[in-house]
């Protein structure tokens, strides 16, 4: 069956020790050992101080690349749709809540609000005054590939003009930890949109994403970094 392609407009990310766009992109290109301190909190200067103070660490890991990318692309942050890809969600907040509940302390209402899986896009929507659609995707190690399916469906059906795929996870606390779980907190943003007949990929530095690229991301259970390394870096403009 002939499948429509979509395009990656641009991407960026953050992680501990990889705290600006170029450093992160260089690391994706040529990875090296980084200190995965879970306490890394991006500054999120684009977010109002009061909101920033309430938001979870994972939310900051989402908002920092989200605002950077919308600004770079000159797209109003209020206009994009969001697909949040997270395998573990607010796993650090959850551990804090368990401590509160099972040691009979008072449960913090803020911690509870911040424990829902999509907390990050909730804060991102408030910070950007975004009233568009926002979905989440979670599928164990296939989470990022599933998010690409979701973004693909939104774009090719014409539901979305621009989808921001926001992939983020935190270092998994010991209670929940298994082999293969996230060791390093990270946040990645990818701006995806439809392709039309006039799209000039080489001239614009954009990347054509075929349906097979999406299927392979899912079937190979690629992380966003794996996928970016395989797909995006073949185009030097990106």
């Amino acid at each position, binding site marked *: 069956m002939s499948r429509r392609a979509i395009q990656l407009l641009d991407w960026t990310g953050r992680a501990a020790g990889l705290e600006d766009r170029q450093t992160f992109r260089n690391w994706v290109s040529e990875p090296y050992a980084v200190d995965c301190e879970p306490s890394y909190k991006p500054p999120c200067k684009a977010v109002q101080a009061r909101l920033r103070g309430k938001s979870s660490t994972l939310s900051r890991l989402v908002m920092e690349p989200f605002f950077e990318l919308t600004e770079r692309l000159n797209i109003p942050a209020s206009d994009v749709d969001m697909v949040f890809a997270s395998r573990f969600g607010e796993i650090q907040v959850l551990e804090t809540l368990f401590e509160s509940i099972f040691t009979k302390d008072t449960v913090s209402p803020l911690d509870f609000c911040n424990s829902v899986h999509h907390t990050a896009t909730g804060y991102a929507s408030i910070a950007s005054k*975004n009233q568009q659609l926002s979905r989440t995707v979670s599928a164990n190690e296939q989470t990022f590939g599933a998010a690409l399916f979701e973004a693909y469906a939104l774009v090719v059906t014409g539901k979305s003009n621009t989808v921001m795929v926001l992939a983020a996870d935190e270092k998994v606390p010991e209670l929940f930890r298994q082999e293969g779980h996230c060791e390093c907190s990270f946040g990645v943003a990818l701006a995806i949109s439809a392709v039309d007949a006039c799209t000039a990929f080489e001239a614009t530095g954009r990347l054509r994403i075929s349906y097979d690229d999406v299927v392979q991301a899912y079937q190979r259970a690629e992380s966003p970094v794996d996928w970016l390394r395989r797909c995006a870096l073949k185009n030097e403009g990106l």
Partner: protein
Amino acid sequence: MAGIADFGMICALGATASECSEALFANILPQMSQRETADGTVVPVFEAPVIPALPEHFSVYECRNNRLAFACYQQVESAVRAHAERISPDRLGVVLGSSTSGLDASEFAFEVLRQTGYRPDTYNFDTQHAMGSLSQFVTELAGAKGPAYTVSTACSSAAKAMLSAKGLIDAGICDAVITGGVDSLCALTVNGFGALGQLSTERMNPLSKNRSGLNIGEGGALFLLTRDSAGVQLLGGGESMDAYHMSAPQPEGVGAELAMKRALDDAAVCAADVMYVNLHGTATRANDAMETQAVKRLLPETMVSSSKPLFGHCLGAAGAIEAAICCISLADTQGRLPAHHFDGSYDTQLPVLPLASVKSRYRDGTIRRVVMSNSFAFGGNNCALVLGESEKGERE
């Protein structure tokens, strides 16, 4: 538009869709059980009835949430198998919603760890608690090979999962998708909503001047969504974000109204076509105030009810269970609407809406029944589904 080939459900109303249908129209208010919060407050909750055990070879998925999912899957299994024979396994997807997934398994592991210093040997985060475990479990039950994932946006999870599932069909990625949602009672949600002061100590009382909050429930509903255009259809849906507050809805219901408007557009129906709205209707002061305003502006003449007093607020599964309630009504040969259950003391501070009663029916001469189901969540995450008969379909 995507056809609902079959659906199964479990909640306090009953262990199957047929039991739920009988109880719904018999207007039976199920008994509630009780849970104690960390601060010692006792609150009523709605537990699902008999939950089946998992087959032994699925024991790695053992948790309350997956057992509820299994109860729903058993009801749609024959339809899934019949459909799967006609399509390639990679064209069968699974998209489910949940806010809890198998949190109870991690809660148990935490308690054991705290008391003994060791995690239980049987604990497995990936297959019991991870959000993805729910869709992975149902994928294995069904032998599906298409995209499988879980949507988690708190109380709108299942409704949004159904729109994601429809998107996979519309985009040509899948020919059929098992969708819906499941949520289970656990300490985290009871304590969390308790901390927010949103739990009622009595049966929830939506739209009443005496309303004092919600009761948490559990359950699920699974649908087999296909390209078939006969029978009850998921006609479309609309989504929005309030962009207002993490746990409080925008007070005038602007975001809710936006989702409902987008749902009408997506389903290609007009406001006058919608004959019934299943309200989010949580009986909190804030939800009922904003939702009635939104409905009054968009669908002022449409019959409404909240079915949550029958099975509680099932959080991440609410959108699916209430869509199933809509399907039961849409297919009902007597044309009965789900009645609104409360103490009869309508809050005069709220805009007046026509409440569905036990005598309410679809309008005489109705050619095509169309209904809406609302789900609103933390983070201002709103979703409205439009369900109805296909234009060409004939009622049984």
